[in-house]
């Protein structure tokens, strides 16, 4: 692609309502655009799917983390009380399984919960204080009541005129270029 395109991050169209955005997203994707993103102040069901994002595998990760937590939790207690420093505590067996459960459980939750959040952040690439889309003046509505669709210049089908006119056809409130 040439200079003119490379110095824009992409083109952004603002829409009136969630439906408009959802509709526009579907058509854009249908048109063949792939490197695009939609922004809204509230989660819109089907929107991610509409732009070609098919589910996340976070749950599996959560499960694995939970498992790790459980093993670490129980293992720690077993190692401490049976292997490293066995002591007679009130005549209870060294390996007092039932009494190791609460801590094991808490460790399970801790690992799973914190792990999931961290994973989510990483996958979402947050924190990311700077992002080109913020260059669009009206984008501040995106966290309040604005609904935006952005086609990035990185997309093979992207060319300023063509894409602009395409977006215009989706009867947006307005289309604006996203500076780098």
């Amino acid at each position, binding site marked *: 692609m040439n200079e003119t395109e490379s110095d824009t991050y992409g083109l952004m169209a603002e829409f009136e309502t969630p439906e408009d955005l959802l509709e526009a997203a579907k058509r854009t994707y249908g048109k063949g655009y792939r490197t695009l993103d939609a922004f809204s102040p509230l989660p819109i069901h089907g929107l991610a799917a509409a732009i070609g994002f098919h589910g996340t595998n976070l749950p599996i990760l959560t499960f694995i983390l939970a498992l790790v937590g459980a093993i670490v939790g129980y293992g720690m207690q077993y190692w401490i009380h049976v292997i490293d*420093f*066995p*002591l007679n505590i009130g005549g209870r067996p060294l390996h007092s399984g039932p009494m190791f459960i609460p801590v094991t459980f808490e460790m399970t939750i801790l690992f799973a919960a914190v792990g999931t959040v961290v994973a989510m952040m990483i996958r979402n690439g947050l*924190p*990311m*204080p*700077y992002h080109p889309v*913020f*260059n*669009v*003046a*009206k*984008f*501040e509505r995106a966290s309040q009541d604005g609904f935006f669709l952005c086609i990035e210049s990185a997309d093979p089908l992207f060319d300023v005129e063509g894409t602009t006119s395409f977006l215009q056809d989706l009867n947006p409130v307005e289309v604006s270029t996203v500076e780098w």
Partner: protein
Amino acid sequence: MPQIFGRSFNWFANVSIVGGIAVASLLLGILLNINRLDYVSQVGVPKSQPVPFSHKHHVAGLGIDCRYCHTTVEETAFAGIPPTETCMSCHSLIWTEAPMLEPVRASFRDNTPLHWTRIHDLPDFAYFRHDIHVSQGIGCQTCHGNVDAMPLMAKAQTLNMEWCLECHRAPEKFIRPREEVFNMKWVPPHDQTAAGLALVKEYQVQTSQLTDCSVCHL
């Protein structure tokens, strides 16, 4: 809307998070190991003494037995620091003029004891007894290091509880024949553990009991 943060902030944000975690865990690591630092446990740090007494000279050089000075090591908790008398028993005959020994002579003359600085100093709540260790085949050297190589006395071990436990959990790793206890040159046999176990059996060391709290904390 204008950007609030410059481009570099993305990089900065991530680095600060990762870096923060790294620094925190580093500090924690130091904190957890503070008692293991030689600086804190004073391992290998000689202290100033009224007389620069050299174990190296007296033990290695002259081959004096530990018990010649530390007389009660086999009888009681306390190994015993020799009275000035003991020093003078030789030094009234040799090195009688040595300026280095003036404090000793002064002590003997004016009947004022010497003030040695304590090297091996356990907390008040840990009740260590020399007699039982010596009689059960734990060599001086095991805890005090190669005293015969120390011109000035210094701690050879941290004396941390975890260090005590090493032996209290598995005496066979350190135990030696009774007759070797005071031998500074003794080297453990290649099959120490096997030999050790035999000795543990012979000396009836109750390993099962050695990690009871009340064995050391009264």
